[in-house]
């Protein structure tokens, strides 16, 4: 009986070690997931700053990109403002309006580039200059409304409102073999009288 008892003690030790080992593995996984989260947090923080950068530049440049100003770009003698082949109609007593697409483009995906004097839109996504592990794309779409001056609708597009644009900036990066994305979006509206 005693011998068997002591043999059992050894097995007990082995079982105990196996249990402790299992625990160590579990806690180890929690730790490594902590480190992964820290890494994700780093990338998210950077991506948020990069997205905000493009959004702020869009805020500053919105009228340069979209506005057709009567007396500057066109005489508007016919009640319409034409710039770069794109036409829009100033509402009421306003002297400007936004065109369907940004100046010199037609499309929805862009990125910003600094050409030495100002920021210009270029088509499609591009790597972020400060950290090229990230790429950034600005999506510009006209807001869909039920009718002119009507409410915004999510499905269908009865009236595509050029004067309000849904602008979103998406930053994407690779993390552990998967593509991660961070996105911010905003609706920009035409400021009607540009002096």
């Amino acid at each position, binding site marked *: 009986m005693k011998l068997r008892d002591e043999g059992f003690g050894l097995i007990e030790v082995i079982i105990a070690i196996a249990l402790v080992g299992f625990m*160590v593995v579990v*806690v180890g996984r929690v730790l490594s997931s*902590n480190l992964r989260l*820290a890494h994700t947090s780093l990338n998210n923080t*950077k991506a948020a700053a*990069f997205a905000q950068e493009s959004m702020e530049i869009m*805020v500053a440049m919105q009228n340069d990109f979209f506005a057709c100003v009567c007396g500057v770009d066109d005489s508007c003698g016919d009640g319409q403002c034409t710039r770069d082949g794109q036409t829009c109609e100033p509402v009421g007593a306003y002297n400007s309006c936004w065109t369907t697409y940004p100046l010199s483009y037609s499309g929805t995906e862009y990125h910003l580039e600094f050409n030495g004097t100002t920021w210009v839109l270029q088509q499609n996504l591009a790597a972020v200059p400060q950290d090229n592990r990230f790429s950034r794309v600005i999506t510009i779409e006209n807001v869909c409304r039920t009718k002119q001056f009507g409410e915004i609708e999510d499905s269908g597009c009865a009236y595509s409102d050029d004067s309000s644009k849904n602008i979103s900036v998406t930053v994407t990066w690779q993390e552990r073999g998967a593509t991660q994305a961070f996105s911010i979006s905003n609706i920009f509206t035409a400021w009607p009288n540009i002096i």
Partner: protein
Amino acid sequence: MIEDLRPREGFTLIEMLIYVALIAASAVIFTSFVVDVIDNSARIITVKEVHQNSRLILARLSQEIKTAKDFSGTFPGESIQLTRTDDTVITLAYDNLTNAVTLDGAPISSDEVRVTALTFDNNVSNVIEIDLTVEQGNPNANVERNYLIDLSTAATVRRGIY
């Protein structure tokens, strides 16, 4: 009694050796594991501290710039003067002696972290570009304990466009 014990004594010795070996091995593994746990938690705290502070500093700077009426400064540079809506003029600056971001000389960044770089740039009329580097607080920490984040963003002076 003695005859009874003898075979058990031999057996216990081998068992003892196995026990000791097993316990020694598991103690070594467990100790290094505990050290790992402590190391990791210290690192996570550092990382969080740096991330949250960098976000806070950036948010504060952006907020001040966005709501300002006007701005001036030498660009690119480490400081910027902003005119607030109540016409008071404030200076946001980088202090490389205390490694802090200051507003009129008073630090607005925590002393738990060190700001090691801050640049304001202004290439296009109302857009202020900000580059910020935040490191963990202890300048004497060894290399693997060091942690920094490098952020760059932009803020537009709203009053300048509307």
